[in-house]
């Protein structure tokens, strides 16, 4: 991996934790599954399991091709609410979500289908919304949040109510979270999550 590539990965996935920064996010393709509500984590966990299971053959090929340059892709989540007040209050049970894992450019439908078929034998039918699709964000504000996800709300509010207006920016897309740690293996107060918000100049 070149230094420039390393720096780019850092810019996209390891933003500063002590202040909001702007980043230009390239269009990427993701394997994704949609859902609604998060009272019970089971559908979320099931979606994440399916994404990684379906991408197993792609990962095998990526490891062979890229060798030491291969980096595991984190789980990412988009969250949006029909009523903005639910979003502002962090009422996850009233929000829609999309769980996503980034895929390589060379991922063909055949390689993806191979993974889905192998996973189906173990996990049953896939969630209906499972698909691979491009997602574009462009200019984004982001910050590294360290702590339990339930305590993100004040940071998200600060981004929307202070950082964006102060910089002449308007939210322009869905709230995006990148989960850098597995919640089952890392203590809540140490969990790292990138909080990202697509924006446009006012």
């Amino acid at each position, binding site marked *: 991996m070149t230094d420039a590539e390393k720096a780019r990965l850092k810019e996209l996935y390891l933003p500063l934790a002590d202040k909001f920064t702007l980043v230009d996010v390239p269009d990427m393709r993701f394997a994704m599954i949609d859902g609604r509500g998060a009272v019970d984590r089971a559908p979320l966990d099931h979606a994440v399991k399916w994404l*990684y*299971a379906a991408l197993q053959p792609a990962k095998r090929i990526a490891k062979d091709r890229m060798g030491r340059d291969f980096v*595991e892709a984190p789980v990412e989540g988009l969250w949006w609410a029909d009523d903005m007040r639910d979003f502002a209050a962090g009422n996850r049970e009233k929000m829609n979500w999309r769980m996503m894992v980034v895929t390589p450019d060379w991922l063909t439908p055949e390689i993806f289908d191979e993974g889905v078929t*192998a996973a189906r034998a173990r996990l049953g039918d896939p969630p209906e919304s499972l698909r691979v699709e491009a997602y574009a964000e462009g200019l984004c504000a982001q910050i590294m949040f360290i702590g339990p996800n339930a305590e993100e709300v004040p940071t998200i509010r600060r981004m929307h109510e202070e950082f964006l207006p102060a910089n002449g920016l308007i939210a322009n897309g869905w709230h995006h979270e990148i989960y850098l740690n597995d919640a089952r293996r890392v*203590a809540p107060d140490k969990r790292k999550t990138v909080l990202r918000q697509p924006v446009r100049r006012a």
Partner: protein
Amino acid sequence: MKALTDAELLLLGLVAEMPRHGYELDSVIEQRGMREWTQIGFSSIYFVLGKLEKLGLILAKKPAGAKAGAKARKVYSTTAAGRKALAAQTLAALRDLQRAYSSVLLGMINFAVLTRDGALEALSARGEAIKAEQARLAAIQIERQPLPDYVEAMFEFSQGQLRAEAEWVARTHAYMATKPWLDEE
């Protein structure tokens, strides 16, 4: 300090990830399929926790108002000594090569007592058993997703060993099948 047993090291590692209840430990071991890698019985979890506590490697905190002895509801966390012991022994586990004896070696030691057909059949059966184990591991790897990279590497380790053994079985089978068998009846 004395080397910890596999079960002790495993539980110490889980408690070091984050403070956990006794009952949580059992379900985490189950969910992660840790009995795949090491031997730990259901009943021995609290015995092992008790031992780690006596060694001063973990702390057990009773929830307020809980009856004494309610082990399942105690919250376990590591001490500084516990984290130090965990790091030292984990490094040793990575570093030190231990000899493991496969049953196939005992089979080869006494190979000369076998008939050709019996020996070839047994080697073929071993080849099939290896294939079945490879498929079983691949299935578990799908069911356990998502996995951190270091656990993916554990699966790669096991699959690599099985691949090497499968090659050996195929080569040995081919050789034994073609060489003149001295005591052929």
